[in-house]
């Protein structure tokens, strides 16, 4: 087993006096797909935002490629290859699709037109509408745009926050297919999902969060198989 590309140790995040994340630890091996699952408000997004440098952790240690990045701001992390696909997609609705993709290549200075063309090949729907404001896209298309935009940045680790949110099941399937492709191309993926079942099916390793803490972790398949965990923490009482 190689050294982890990303480690999080004892992470704590607070908003004022409110503690949203208490002592969370996890790691991702290079090329792995790791998922953090849990109900709304469990603190998953806070973890991912702290890793991405959007939030200042109150405590703990985060390393990326062996170097500490606990308090490194987001813009430096993107340059180093730690890229986030944020929750709610956060596309820039008033900018065109092309401009959104160019923003993905912000840190390269130019706009990475080669990478953008590659995205147009991969997502032809974006190429067709490249001059339209991104806000005119459908939810699923916006999610694709958000992913494509992150890919333009050339990530080594991609942090994905609820990519299936608000999408129809068929489109969720497609999003997950894209995620698996990304992972297959060697990029490490850290996936935060409410759709636990779906996420665990795709992942190598899973962490179940509850009220700001990791309450279970293990190989994804094992977690998925443990009906008690699914019932108790994933908000699903009766299922398939």
């Amino acid at each position, binding site marked *: 087993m190689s050294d982890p590309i990303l480690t999080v140790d004892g992470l704590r995040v607070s908003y004022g006096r409110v503690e949203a994340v208490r002592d969370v630890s996890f790691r991702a091996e290079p090329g792995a797909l790791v998922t953090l699952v849990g109900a709304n408000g469990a603190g998953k997004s806070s973890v991912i935002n702290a890793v991405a440098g959007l939030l200042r952790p109150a405590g703990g240690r985060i390393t990326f490629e062996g170097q500490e990045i606990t308090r490194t701001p987001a813009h430096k992390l993107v340059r180093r290859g730690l890229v986030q696909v944020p929750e709610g997609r*956060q596309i820039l609705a008033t900018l065109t699709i092309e401009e959104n993709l*160019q923003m*993905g290549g*912000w840190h390269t200075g*130019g706009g990475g037109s080669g990478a953008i063309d590659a995205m147009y090949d991969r997502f032809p729907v974006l190429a067709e509408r490249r001059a339209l404001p991104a806000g005119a896209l459908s939810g699923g298309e916006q999610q694709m745009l958000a992913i494509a935009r992150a890919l333009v940045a050339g990530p080594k680790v991609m942090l994905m926050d609820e990519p299936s949110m608000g999408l129809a099941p068929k489109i969720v399937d497609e999003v997950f297919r894209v995620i698996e492709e990304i992972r297959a191309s060697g990029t490490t993926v850290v996936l935060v999902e409410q759709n636990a079942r779906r996420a665990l099916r795709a992942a190598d390793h899973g962490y179940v969060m509850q009220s700001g803490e990791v309450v279970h972790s293990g190989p994804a398949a094992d977690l998925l198989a443990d009906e008690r965990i699914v019932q108790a923490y994933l908000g699903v009482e009766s299922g398939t």
Partner: protein
Amino acid sequence: MQQLLNGIFIGSIYALFAIGFTLVFGILDRLNLAHPAVFAASAFVGIELVERGGLSLWAALPLVFVVGAVLGLLIERLAFRPLKGRADAHFAGLISSIALAGMLIALLQWRYGPDTRRFPPGSFPDTRFEVFGAQVTLVQVVILAVSLALMVALTYMVTRTRLGRGMRAVAENPTAARVLGVNVDRVTAVTFAISSSLGAVAGVLFAINVNTAQLGMGAAIELKGLAVIIVGGMGSLPGALIGGLLLGLAEVFAVQYIGSSWIDVIAFGLLFVILLLRPQGLLGARKVREV
């Protein structure tokens, strides 16, 4: 005819002032009330460069541009960045920029005294033209041209360049911009710098145009600048130009048909009507939806 030209030229001054103002106000949604102080400061610095430094105006202008940019960075750093994330950032930003403006004007008085000053005669060619029987000076033509050019150049910058994209991204969604690796603080600072350097150039041209520079020159034009921004549409660069020209023409025709005492009522009346009927301004996009 003369009045028409007068209106256009006054209007282009308003526009020149407002373009810098609106960049920060419209794009970053921050009202920087230190902008008028930069406007005044640059005129005095420009005069000193020409008078003491013996530079030609053309050499002094780029330097003034730099001075303006530095002031912009200082303003952002001292008056706005510390307020980031505060619940009252809006009010507080107004006040901190007013405080900074007061300090800047005080420093100007210390350095240059309270008297009016002007660019030494001959620092700008005193060329005049006659257009359809109306008198036009070269300065006026330059100001109009500069306003137009700046409007076009800035519009290009905002819509076509990487920096412009970054500015718009920061304006629309700072979080998304950060996720994409944009150093939001830096883009904000650069926006302030550009805004202030435009204000600085405006100050110099203004002082040449009216042949006087005063500590209060920024304050005198401040309210009209606000009116122009609102009339033209917040953050809209062409809006600032059109708003400026509209205000200039309205004033001139007020002189002719209503009476000179009522000029300012026209400006603010126009402002008021626009705010009530079309709050987004003539060219502004309706950014915010009411629910």
